[in-house]
């Protein structure tokens, strides 16, 4: 480990705090995440070079010496590949109409009964969050809620539906290793396999989902319909939905469905599939994206344009900043600060880390938090089944439920709420969401300590 003077480390700590605050006030600054973090990446790189913390290194790749710019090795390319590949795959697959088909089928199966609709939409939110990603799940289920409740003349219940769905995206986002970015970062650093992750997280997800639905139904007065006339009228109103309307071609629909199933199977079996295990999940995600793009081979550029480059640039720059923080011994400093917490043991320590992660990710992006903690915990050489990893996973995901800026999906929920001209301020969101988040965190703490501890 090279020597870094205390003032230099302090300067980098200041930059890290400044970046975190800037991300927390992203909306106020009217600046995209990628620009904010990109600026800090440029500054930290320059300062790291000026203080002699980083030097270009020459590595040998397939026998050839290659000098890499200092910012290249710092980026976690596996995470970038998984996000890019999954996003493209989901975007192209959604064109086959599978997700909207499922959503409309469930709407019709509810026969317009509000309570059944809430249960179906909630389960759908969790499953879509797990299979797709939180934001896409919220967009699909949230927009359908707006349309179907409007049709059923139940717009007074829309706020409740959207809030419950928003809160469940972060619960569903814990179901698999690829369901959320913190899962990908922590899981890949800890060496948790797809299957292990699923088996470990699923009991909690099931219980937390049931509790959230029950609590939401009571709080927002969402009840089953009574009386034959009301039931018949509601059923006839939702009967007008045509699940096949969004299916462009039956062939592509079947292809998309098959590929979605294969995608999940392939992701789940990466660690045991010969050759593929050497290439990683990023390879699987990108390969499936390319296969799906063959359907739109001539117009694939439309999908490239639709990729969220802000998110990808944000990740790339974030990894650079964290890498520079590592060189400036900031992570070591934070790790020292975390040692007393970890020293509290696998009961109190885990509980404190879970709550601290949740509080931190409620006011700022949970991705930098996950990336930093992954780096720090990785340095402590914890076992892959250590409850500390799970404390960060649960805390980083569920913390997003405390405030509307805590996660991208709750932000989407609030956007849909405002789009439907429903009142929802920052404070009123917190007032409604805190009891849900508190209960989910208590359940998570009990689960991590009692079941996983």
């Amino acid at each position: 480990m090279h020597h870094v003077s205390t003032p230099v480390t302090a300067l980098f700590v200041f930059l890290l705090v400044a970046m975190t605050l800037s991300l927390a006030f992203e909306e106020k600054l009217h600046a995209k995440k990628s620009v904010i973090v990109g600026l800090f990446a440029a500054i930290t790189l320059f300062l790291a070079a000026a203080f002699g913390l980083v030097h270009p290194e020459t590595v040998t790749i397939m026998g050839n010496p290659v000098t890499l710019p200092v910012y290249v090795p710092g980026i976690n390319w596996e995470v970038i590949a998984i996000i890019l590949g999954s996003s493209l795959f989901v975007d192209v697959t959604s064109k086959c109409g599978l997700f909207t088909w499922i959503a409309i089928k469930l709407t019709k199966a509810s026969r317009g009964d509000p309570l059944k609709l809430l249960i179906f939409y909630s389960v759908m939110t969790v499953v879509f969050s797990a299979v797709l990603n939180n934001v896409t799940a919220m967009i699909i289920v949230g927009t359908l809620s707006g349309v179907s409740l409007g049709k059923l003349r139940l717009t007074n219940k829309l706020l409740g539906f959207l809030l419950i769905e928003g809160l469940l995206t972060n619960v569903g986002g814990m179901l698999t290793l690829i369901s959320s970015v913190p899962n990908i970062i922590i899981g890949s650093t800890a060496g948790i396999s797809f299957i292990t992750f699923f088996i470990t997280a699923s009991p909690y997800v099931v219980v937390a989902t049931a509790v959230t639905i029950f609590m939401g139904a009571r709080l927002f007065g969402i009840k089953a319909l009574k009386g034959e006339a009301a039931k018949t009228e509601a059923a006839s109103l939702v009967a007008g939905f045509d699940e096949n309307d969004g299916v462009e071609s039956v062939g592509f629909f079947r292809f998309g469905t098959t590929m979605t199933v294969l995608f999940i199977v392939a992701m789940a079996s990466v660690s045991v599939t010969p050759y593929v295990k050497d290439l990683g999940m990023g390879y699987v995600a990108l390969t499936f994206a390319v296969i799906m793009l063959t359907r739109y081979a001539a117009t694939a550029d439309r999908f490239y344009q639709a990729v969220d480059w802000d998110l990808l640039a944000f990740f790339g720059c974030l990894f650079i900043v964290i890498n520079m923080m590592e060189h400036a011994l900031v992570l070591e400093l934070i790790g020292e600060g975390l040692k007393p917490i970890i020293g509290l043991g696998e009961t109190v320590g885990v509980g404190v880390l879970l709550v601290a992660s949740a509080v931190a990710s409620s006011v700022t992006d949970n991705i930098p938090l996950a990336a930093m903690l992954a780096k720090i915990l990785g340095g402590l050489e914890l076992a892959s089944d250590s409850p500390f990893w799970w404390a960060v996973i649960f805390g980083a995901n569920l913390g997003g439920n405390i405030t509307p800026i805590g996660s991208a999906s709750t932000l989407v929920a609030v956007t849909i709420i405002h789009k439907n001209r429903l009142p929802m301020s920052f404070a009123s969101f917190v007032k409604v969401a805190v009891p849900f988040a508190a209960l989910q965190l208590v359940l998570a703490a009990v689960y991590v300590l009692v079941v996983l501890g």
Partner: protein
Amino acid sequence: MTNLNQFESVFKSADKAVYTYDRPTFDRVLVVTDLNEADAANITNRVRKFLNTIDAAGTRWDTLSGDAFGSVQALLESIEKHKPDLIVTYRHLHSSAWQWPYSLGEYLDVMTQATSVPLLVLPHPDDDRALPHSIQDTDRVMAVTNHLTGDNRLVNIAVAFTKPSGTCWLTHVERKSVFERYMDAISKIPAIDTDVAREALSEQLLKEPRDFIAACRAAIDAQGLPIRIEEVVSMGRQIDEYGELIAKREIDLLVLHTKDKGQLAMHGAAYALAVELRNIPLLML
């Protein structure tokens, strides 16, 4: 990445108008003429033969001859007294203006808006412009509108008037002039791709009535009604399109809306259709 509008559009498009079959009944029919009693009775007999599809055993037929009313007020009072489910009449009662095809005449003008009863308007008895197949039977009925989707009443009435084994055309002609005006505005907005907008908008405007007609056909088939439902969905100038369709398909009866909640005058193109399409019977709702 997927976005909000993309999915909202998909779900809104999937939310289709539901058609429910409900057969209307016409228990009392009032035939209003400006002829003497004998000629008026002849007209009534001819109309009964023409409308035998809705003429049930209990249907009551009343006739007003020319001397039964001398003013619009008197006619409206008479209608109020008879409480008909259907009024049968023709243009230019008590007037010779039927020779000039530029208006409906004061009686019909008021009746279309002052009563909620469907009005069957026949070609004028003295007018030789009526098509040869006119007032024979209702083998070929056409419902016309520029907004068919969700219009259950229009479809149900058109179906009720269609003779068993006959054909009912459900039509929707989107006004091309209005479409082009919007496209002209869109072509001046840089943020919108004009070609994409033209294709997508035109496709969506025509898709909705097509979907609704398919739903009508399925529901009517499910009822086991012995009539055929045909679709005519296009974009153009309504008068021209309908004129051409009437001649080409030898339509016996045209069914259309005339009322508009937002105004006292006839809605949209209804007046123009009622004035210009004088060679076949029109059922004005």
